[in-house]
């Protein structure tokens, strides 16, 4: 049960949020021009690493805003939280 610092509301309990999986996967602008393999890559392939991971989170029981988060999945340390459209931190 970690605490998440929602970029719009501040620090809240994890139970208010839902995780939306890996971040920074952009929906292809021209899907019709992709091969089955390319489309499958977008549609199905997700990383699930032990360590630092970039994730999408939604403040579902709060402001309903989506944002991005950098979390170490091995110890749940949150390294950064940033709004959609903002550049991910380099480190």
């Amino acid at each position: 049960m970690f605490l998440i610092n929602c970029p719009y509301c501040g620090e809240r309990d994890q139970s208010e949020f839902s995780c939306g999986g890996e971040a920074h996967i952009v929906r292809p602008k021209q899907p019709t021009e992709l091969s089955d393999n390319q489309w499958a890559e977008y549609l199905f392939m997700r990383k699930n690493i032990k360590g630092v991971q970039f994730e999408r989170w939604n403040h579902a029981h709060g402001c309903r805003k989506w944002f991005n988060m950098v979390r170490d999945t091995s110890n749940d340390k949150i390294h950064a939280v940033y709004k959609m459209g903002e550049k991910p931190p380099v480190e």
Partner: protein
Amino acid sequence: MTKFRVNKTKHVDQTKTVSFNFDGKSYHGFDGDTLASALLSNGVHLVGRSFKYHRPRGIMSCGSEEPNAICQINEDTDLTEPNVRATEIELYEGLKASSQNCWPSVNFDIGGINNFISPFIPAGFYYKTFMWPKSFWKKIYEPLIRWSAGLGKSPTKPDPELYDHKHVHCDVLIIGGGISGIIASKIAAKNNLRTILIEDKNILGGSTIFQKNENYKINNKYSSEWLDEEIVELQKLDNLTIKTRTSLAAYHSYNYLLAKENISDHLPLDKRNGDIRQRLWKIRADKVLVATGAIERPLVFNNNDRPGIMLANSVKKYLDFYGVSCGFNNVIFTNNDSAYETAVSLKEKGISVEIIDIRKKSNSKIVKNAEKLGVKIYWNSTIVNTFGHRKINSIEIMNLSEDGSNVVGDKNRINCDCLAVSGGWTPMVHMHTQSGGKLDFRENDQTFIPTEIDENHINVGSCNGDFELEEIINNTNKKVKNFLKVSETEFDNTSVLNSKELDKRNIWLLPNYISEGKCKSFIDFQNDSTVKDIKLALREGFKSIEHVKRYTTTGMATDQGKLSNMHALGIIADTVGVKMGTLGTTTFRPPFTPLTFGSIVGRSVGKFFDIIRKTSIHEWHSQNNAKFENVGQWKRPWYYPINDEGLHDAVQRESKAARDSAGILDASTLGKIDIQGTDASEFLNRVYTNAWSKLGIGKCRYGLMLNEDGMVYDDGVTTRLGENHYLMTTTTGGAANVLSKLEDYLQTEWPELDVYLTSVTDHYSTASICGPNSKKILTKIFPDKDFSDEAFPHMSYQNAKIDEINCRIMRISFTGELSYEINIESKYGKSLWEKCIEVGKEFKITPYGTETMHLLRAEKGFIIVGQDTDGTMTPIDLQMDWIVSKKKYDFIGKRSLYRSDTIREDRKQLVGLLTDDPNEVLEEGAQIVSDVNKKPIEMIGHVTSSYFSPNLNKSIALAVVKSGKKMNGQKLIVPMENKNINVTVSDSVFLDKENKRIYA
């Protein structure tokens, strides 16, 4: 006073007698006793039978680590509680307890035969034996295992007690009210930090509170006296909340902890007054100090499990805290100094005691003290056997060889009625590891101690590996100040006197002249795992400690191996020939001690279990005899029986009425999303499969929404209210998910779109009126409105007023009949409904529920997302190609509709099914096959919806069948348990293919 109550102490009030009942016999104890101390004061040691071999077992400890003395409390079928540790139950007047896992009684137990056949039931016995013959499993093995398995009895009626949850925040949480916890609390609270101290016992003080020995002094006072004064001071502090009878259950990440407070369990039943029984504290702490102490280790030797064999420090606590002597002829068996405190305490009260020490010598002060009192000590010796069936009566000892690997010399038999053992101490690192902390192994006393890594969490006292009084006080003081960043001087110059332990010797498995195979050396007392079992597991190839644990069930009983895990590890390490520190430990998982289900669920029981959503018309439905169905959290009218009508008859009547004259449905639960913004049309184009740009204002359109994988996700009618304003409806169950999915796309993929989404499901109530007479009813309700097909065509909407109240009328149909839906602000929902019923009386308007709605739409071949689809159906599979736009460049899921898998022609596709016998109604979910003779029989599909249609007077069904599109007219079979039902594939629209009725 019984003869075992030898000592008066301030913790037990010997003027207040408490009577209780154990295994049907009445006893007396005193106020302040636990069930265990009261039983011991009556000379009762035998309190249970072991799980597998049914060996007699006695009270072993005085705390939560107790493996043997687990009882069934209370006889009432609703209040009875199994697996309660007698060492933790505070005695109250009228307490009824009984031993578990024995039949017919604890003194004579039939299952005890397992003890004699034990050579034939080794580790893995169940896995190896109950494999064959296969036919024995169901009738013989399973009932037998079920009868003999399990500890205690569950209540058979709902729990009538009240439980509570409480959320708290604090600066500092201190777990454990022993000496280090008290010092830490005082430092924290004195320095303006909001502090909570929790302690699982009913009083503070830990094991120091009954320490009255010349060799252990603080500021020249007995350590117990010094601590008493500290506790008095502590209770005066404002910033401190002290919660006794509160045990920590779980330590989660980010310092989120759960603790269970016992509020009324210690009170006599008639004094509980229906108050809250237990409260679960949900604590978010800035900083956490763990001061949970240490657990004494037993020793592993032959027949080490007889009643009367106890932990040495527990024997001391029973004597010095409760005033109870566990025996009059005591022997102490130890590998360390701490057990000598017990010896001194016994001897000072004139009770006989001898010591068997596996060490060659010890010159510490406490050992000298014991020698001076005349305690006989057998150095370099070990116990090789114990005797006595229901209670220990004698032991056999031998000398150890130089390296401790063997026994030498003659056997020597010593009589005793209590054997106090001590194998050293294990820091309680459970909380530390639960929070994610790691452990280091300390060689010199073979303990795992916490590795400090987290700046918001530390361990102090003996749970941190500090076992001697001086270390405990000085290190706790230093660490806490540093951790809390305060400069408190109170404990800086505390003078501490204690006996220092200088000599150590640890032997995990004590040697014996009897061969290992013939010894019963228990490691896990509750699950009956022996050294033999562990060694067998290793021989059979199990290497990981996690596998050995599961195969032998060591550490898997209700005590979670508090007394056994370390010995298992040590013996594995010795056997395999590796260093213990390299093995790692098994994982400590919450809860630390078992939690009641009641405390976990708190108030969320009965009607508070989940949110119940009711429409504004609910009351009318109830008054009119509706039976309700749960749809998500909603209560929806299922059908409205008249008199004693059943479901079938009511639905047949309602369905016929809706098509013959008029029916009315409460459609308020459908999800409603208000969509506004200059890009609203473009947004709908992207989320639905069909085109929306050209939909005129005031028109309605049915839309199908896909997932990105091309599978149908939701459907519903969306109405264009204005140029940039739409009202979308979704399925009842899908409303919340659709909204969050749409928000997701808007915020993350298409932030450039000017679109705003608002859930308005609860804002409007909807009455849906259908049937050939619906137009007449609407005309009566809205006399000024022109309902002709020209003025108010199908799939359009208009604003209207009832008694000055605004409403929206949509002419849309989910039944295939001429149909109108009236939307009105929820607060007017019930009066709108009542008006419709009143006006509709002359047309015999019939309220119908969800079951009739499902039947009517099935007659018309309309799908229900979630019933006829299951997340693997594309619009093409549903034969709804017409709704998929070929012109649109993109929409959610479009690209997936021509992946190699989605264009397969042999996918399951939606078809109609007609039974050859028109009265035979198929079961929903039934499998469909084409050939019952070809084995194995291939399942080619299943029935998704099935009804008897009163309007067509025959059975109809929808089904998904492989390559179903090409099967029209083909014969298939639905095999049931006793018969095969012959069916014919048909079109999925059974009624009014020409759509005449919606223009009736």
